[in-house]
């Protein structure tokens, strides 16, 4: 591939679909996860606006298996706003991360792009895409992965890889290994040349020939009951089926980022990622953030986003790390710390909300208190990163919830679904409340269905 500057680039953002991502409940019960607001913008907005910085970007495709109508409004609005064509492509059934890309190859190749970016919508990072593209051109392979160094203990949750320190070639890749392989992990952001389609086709035809999956695994009855797509030839996963086999063959390279990186898998993470993006705005576009000293407008501490249509009383104190969405009303004497307040929420006088996500149209009564852990101290990110209960990092502030069940390890942030009413003087601690509930007694460490 030549390095001519008028070669076009296409970006593909995988957004998933409704039956996946149950970890994002209850927020995903009424809105597709990719549209959930992080730092004042829908989650998918962040990779989309990062794509805008790629030179010669021709088109952005969002690929997923949500219904088209769920994305129709958003896609036309964002295309207008950012002046770049964005289109949602619906998979008829899950094809896997590589299969999805392959399925739409004709559309993707319509603009005759020299390079194709593939991003996962639930990745939160600085998206150094132009830099990745330049590095990829120099390496001359068929693909370059964005990688980051993490702590050895947390690496096993991701795809671990080994790269040549001089050439940056991808030497070895393995997904969620049981033993330690490397502390460098796959960020879920890739750039490919169109040769990737050939590589994917070769893999699917190999599976056809051998007739069964390369590794022998006990298939549980639950898996065997899955629709045939999982075992068929057009379900191709990027990590295990493409990256692993191609590692070490001088085809794939890595580009390391030293900035932040998180995956937005759970509602608690959305709060952490909101914080990261808000602090990024401070550097790239500080005019987006709110400010105030209590005279004409509320006191603002740290990085705070307040939608222009929201009304915040001057005696309120907001921040750090707060996002307030459209038409929300924050009353006198309210204190908000580390929270996401969604559209049309009403917070009445003297209430306190910290480490929480308050869903659309909810109301928080006077003197009520909505919080996560028992201390009001702002939590460090180590707390939010906890996925398994086995992560004991010395020195991290221990404010995990007390829940013992394997499934409840996400109770680090209080979440109120849509239209939840918290009555006056009620306290809600480390709880999750599903939509349309009214709390007239205090609750702690509970899930309210």
């Amino acid at each position, binding site marked *: 591939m030549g390095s001519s500057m008028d070669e076009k680039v296409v970006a593909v953002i995988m957004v998933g679909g*409704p*039956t996946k991502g*149950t970890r994002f*409940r*209850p927020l995903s*019960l009424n809105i597709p996860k990719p549209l959930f607001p992080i730092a004042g913008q829908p989650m998918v907005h962040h990779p989309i606006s990062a794509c805008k910085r790629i030179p010669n970007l021709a088109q952005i495709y969002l690929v997923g298996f949500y219904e088209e109508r769920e994305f129709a409004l958003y896609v036309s609005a964002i295309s207008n706003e950012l002046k770049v064509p964005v289109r949602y492509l619906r998979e008829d059934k899950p094809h896997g991360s590589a299969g999805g890309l392959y399925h739409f190859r004709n559309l993707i190749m319509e603009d005759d792009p020299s390079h194709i970016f593939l991003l996962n919508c639930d990745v939160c990072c600085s998206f150094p895409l132009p830099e990745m593209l330049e590095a990829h051109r120099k390496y001359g392979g068929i693909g370059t992965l964005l990688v980051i160094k993490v702590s050895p203990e947390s690496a096993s949750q991701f795809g671990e890889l080994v790269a040549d320190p001089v050439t940056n070639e991808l030497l070895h890749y393995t997904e969620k290994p049981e033993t330690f392989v490397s502390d460098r992990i796959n960020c879920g952001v890739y750039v490919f040349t169109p040769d990737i389609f050939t590589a994917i086709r070769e893999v699917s035809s190999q599976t056809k020939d051998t007739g069964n999956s390369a590794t022998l695994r006990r298939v*549980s*009855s*639950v898996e065997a*009951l899955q629709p045939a797509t999982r075992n068929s030839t057009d379900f191709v996963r990027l990590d295990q089926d493409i990256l692993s086999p191609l590692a070490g063959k001088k085809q794939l390279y890595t580009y390391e980022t030293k900035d932040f990186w998180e995956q937005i898998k759970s509602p608690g993470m959305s709060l952490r990622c909101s914080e990261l993006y808000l602090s990024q705005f401070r550097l790239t576009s500080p005019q987006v953030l709110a400010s105030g000293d209590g005279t004409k407008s509320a006191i603002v501490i740290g990085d705070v986003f307040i939608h222009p249509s929201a009304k915040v009383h001057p005696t309120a104190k907001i921040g750090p790390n707060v996002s307030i969405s459209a038409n929300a009303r924050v009353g006198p004497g309210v204190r908000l710390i580390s929270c996401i307040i969604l559209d049309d929420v009403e917070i009445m006088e003297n209430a306190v909300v910290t480490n929480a996500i308050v869903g659309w149209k909810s109301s928080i009564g006077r003197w009520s208190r909505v919080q996560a852990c028992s201390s009001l101290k702002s939590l460090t990110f180590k707390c939010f990163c906890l996925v398994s209960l086995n992560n004991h990092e010395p020195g991290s502030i221990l404010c995990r919830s007390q829940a013992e*069940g*394997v*499934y*409840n390890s996400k109770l680090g942030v209080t979440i109120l679904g849509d239209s939840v009413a918290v009555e006056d003087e009620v306290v809600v601690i480390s709880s*999750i409340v*599903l*939509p*349309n*509930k009214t709390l007239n007694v205090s609750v702690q460490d509970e*899930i309210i*269905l």
Partner: protein
Amino acid sequence: MKALILVGGFGTRLRPLTLSFPKPLVDFANKPMILHQIEALKAVGVDEVVLAINYQPEVMLNFLKDFEAKLEIKITCSQETEPMGTAGPLALARDKLVDGSGEPFFVLNSDVISEYPLREMIEFHKAHGGEASIMVTKVDEPSKYGVVVMEETTGKVEKFVEKPKLYVGNKINAGIYLLNPSVLDKIELRPTSIEKETFPKIAAAQGLYAMVLPGFWMDIGQPKDYITGLRLYLDSLRKKSPGKLTTGAHIVGNVLVDETAKIGEGCLIGPDVAIGPGCVVESGVRLSRCTVMRGVRIKKHACVSSSIIGWHSTVGQWARIENMTILGEDVHVGDEIYTNGGVVLPHKEIKSNILKPEIVM
């Protein structure tokens, strides 16, 4: 004759089942809850049923077209834009309920399951000549509810007492009313409570009479009562139309199995079990006191008791499901898994044991 069914809100107490369907369409004894009431109304000559709803009308209307055709009864919706309480919806649906004939109309509460002795209620209403009749039912713990204080012989209602601290009576409002059209004149078009505002007015004018509901009564708006309700319902079915229950060597007690369901060899089913359409129960399965909804597959040697298995779920081999486990739609419990009171939201796989009652999102 007309009828109004108060469907009301979000059915949050019956989650996770109501995350997949609005509450009136959640199946009970292999039939959508609301169909039990509509059929009972049709049987006494009601030709139009109005549903007072405020949630997911599109989903409801689709189903209703089906019922309308099959039952040959007209079904319409009256949609509340804000919650109207227990009397407001009547005023809202006024035009549909009053047809000039002067006939009384029924009002039913959609959460309630009973034998619906509506013909007897019509007779009772004609006999006393008052403006309104309500069904009351006897309960063990009246202070949990609103107690209706009435004259034992005539049934004339003296007053309502909400959650009384001292014993005033043991009959509570069963949520089934037969009202003359003139009652609508007493209800303003605003959120109002029928027990706190409307009925006391009518009782003061000596126009309200109560009939003790014969047979069983259950508010099945939450899972525990749903399971008890099934037992009462099947009991009543045994007395009234035992032919509908399933019999066989592998059946114990009252069991209702849809004709399209398949049951394997060596199973023991019952008592108090309902198995819905298209279900597959493989061999060696033990089911007791549970509801198995449409399309569920229960694999070999599994054991399910006192639980509700939601639509299209699967229960793995040798799995044990008990103690008020509620599986939402499309939940798959792995082989050999034990769940004790797990409440599982739709579209989940359960691959590890749930040792004590827990909500799985």
